[in-house]
């Protein structure tokens, strides 16, 4: 990495340079990513949008250290992921990255608080302390009174908030979300997006969201459109974040409170 690139990467939490990812099935080879270059700064909520098969999920998997790129380099929080070996990569993920999945992936046998405590348990925190911290996190997210409920006793929106609590409980610098609103109705989707926007701005985190859902475009600081494994368009939103209530991230009931417009970068 040259000095300019190093300087640039230090300003950004995530830097991708020439990322290519090829999948092979028998004799068939599929190029999912074709030379992706991008940088993401902290405090930004970035949306990865595009049609199915355009490489969105592959790209966040590479950024989250779940997949190794075939070519190129990914630097996350100043560390090159392609040079990290298995164990170090697993530790890196456990420490710095939070995950929010489309289908929540909550453990059905655990309560909301126990689910949210899982990353702390992975980190080796004592169970009672981890669950107590998870209860506090859930209360911050407006789930007081639901902490001892099992996932099947919660609505989709509540389950996704538990998943967000789980993703945030260990204070990661990067939050990676895969279609977090896909399984939610408009109201719940809006609440979840407000929550994620707040998480990005307030804690200076990188929040990357893969989405198909045009309704959520208004919440992104930046929208990266992918097509056929390449960045087709990189747009920035100019929007007013005043609708996010200070000190309380429990979502409001208003589904469309974020007034914003979209402008194209370059």
């Amino acid at each position, binding site marked *: 990495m040259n000095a300019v690139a190093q300087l640039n990467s230090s300003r950004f939490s995530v830097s991708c340079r020439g990322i290519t990812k090829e999948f092979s099935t028998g004799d068939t080879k599929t190029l999912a990513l074709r030379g992706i270059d991008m940088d993401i700064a902290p405090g930004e909520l970035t949306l990865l949008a595009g049609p199915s098969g355009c490489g969105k999920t592959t790209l966040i998997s590479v950024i989250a250290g*779940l997949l190794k790129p075939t070519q190129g380099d990914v630097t996350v929080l100043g560390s090159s992921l392609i040079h990290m070996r298995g164990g170090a990569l697993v530790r890196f993920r456990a420490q710095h990255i939070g995950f929010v999945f489309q289908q929540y*992936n909550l*453990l059905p*046998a655990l309560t909301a608080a126990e689910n949210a405590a899982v990353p702390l348990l*992975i980190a080796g925190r004592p169970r009672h302390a981890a669950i107590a911290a998870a209860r506090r996190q859930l209360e911050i997210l407006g789930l007081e009174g639901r902490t001892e409920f099992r996932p099947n006793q919660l609505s989709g929106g509540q389950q996704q908030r538990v998943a967000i609590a789980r993703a945030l409980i260990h204070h990661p610098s990067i939050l990676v979300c*895969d279609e977090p609103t896909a399984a939610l109705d408009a109201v719940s989707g809006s609440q979840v997006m407000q929550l994620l926007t707040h998480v990005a701005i307030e804690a200076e985190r990188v929040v990357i969201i893969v989405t198909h859902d045009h309704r959520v475009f208004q919440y992104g600081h930046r929208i990266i459109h992918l097509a056929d494994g390449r960045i087709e368009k990189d747009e920035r939103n100019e929007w007013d974040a005043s609708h996010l209530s200070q000190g309380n991230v429990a979502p409001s009931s208003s589904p469309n409170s974020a007034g914003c417009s979209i402008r194209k970068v370059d």
Partner: protein
Amino acid sequence: MNWVAVRMLVGDTAKYVGLVFGISFATLLMAQQISIFVGIMARTASQVTDIRDASLWVMDNKTRFIDEAPGLPDNDLHRVRGVAGVAWAVHLYKGQVTARLADGNYRALVLFGLDDSTLIGAPQEMVLGQLSDLRQPDAVVVDKAGYEYMWPGEPYHIGREFQLNDRRAKLVGICKASAPFTTLPVVYTRLSTVRGFVPQQRHIVNYILAEPDAGEDPVDVCRRIEESTGLMALTKRQFFWKTIGYFLQTTGIPVNFGITIALGFIVGAAITGQTFYLFTLENLKQFGALKAMGVTNVRILGMVLLQALIVGGLGYGVGIGLTAAFFESTKNITHLAGLYLNPYAAIGVGVAVLAIISLSALIASIKVLVLEPAVVFRG
């Protein structure tokens, strides 16, 4: 994370119970069948173990098992007594006769004829009557199970009479004896009485019971007896295993039990393996999420093994408990009395169960270990 593994396991009650049931069933089937097999095999030589007064058995050198010994000339006893290292030796008759009961029915019996003066080979425990009453004319003692077989449903009563070879036999006592392989009544009397109870033949007595001198190695004494007399001399343990070996080699019992035990293992392994494998597959997405969140493969493997060990331990415990309960409930049934949960069977089945669950866990783990954590982002 072990706690999470346990909660994942017990969270789905139906599957958890199914897994435990699979292992319990396999354990019950294997432990019960092995114990019955061991018990039945031990019955083939139960008369050898029941005679505790003597360490050595001397017989014709072509004898293959306890029910097959031909008669010995009377002077063989003196030849055995003359071998160096033999402390004492006495005659013993063991054969099979048919009794005619007072109601006209016939019953086959195992008949023991004991040395008149010492009663060596007599039963160790009497249920009713005195062993010394065996010295009365025509006196016999019958074992408890045999009494119930000869006079079913009737209270224990000594003084009963029946006929052996048209001779009167008078019941003077009821004793405890291990069930023989054929579950026939075991009747004890004196040798002098036996001579009237069995059809006339040149040599009646077919065994010599002996005891080595103190400090003598029984195996050495047996060798000396064989060299001096040309008879076969075996320690009690050797004769026990010789008899069992005969039944193992010449009957279909081990094959049949072996098939049942193998089926128990295969069915248990199939039920448990498949259920545990499916259980793990259904949790694959959860394991993928845990891997994405930073749980290492080693830890995942530990979680799956812990789940398998819990299921295996519980299933084994329940299965062994049910097996013990089965034998406890059948201990007073005459034909099943003496069969018990063999501790070696319990240990062996424990090893088999450990093998089943370890194999199931390892096969199931492979799916988890090779799972790309990125799978959590794929729908």
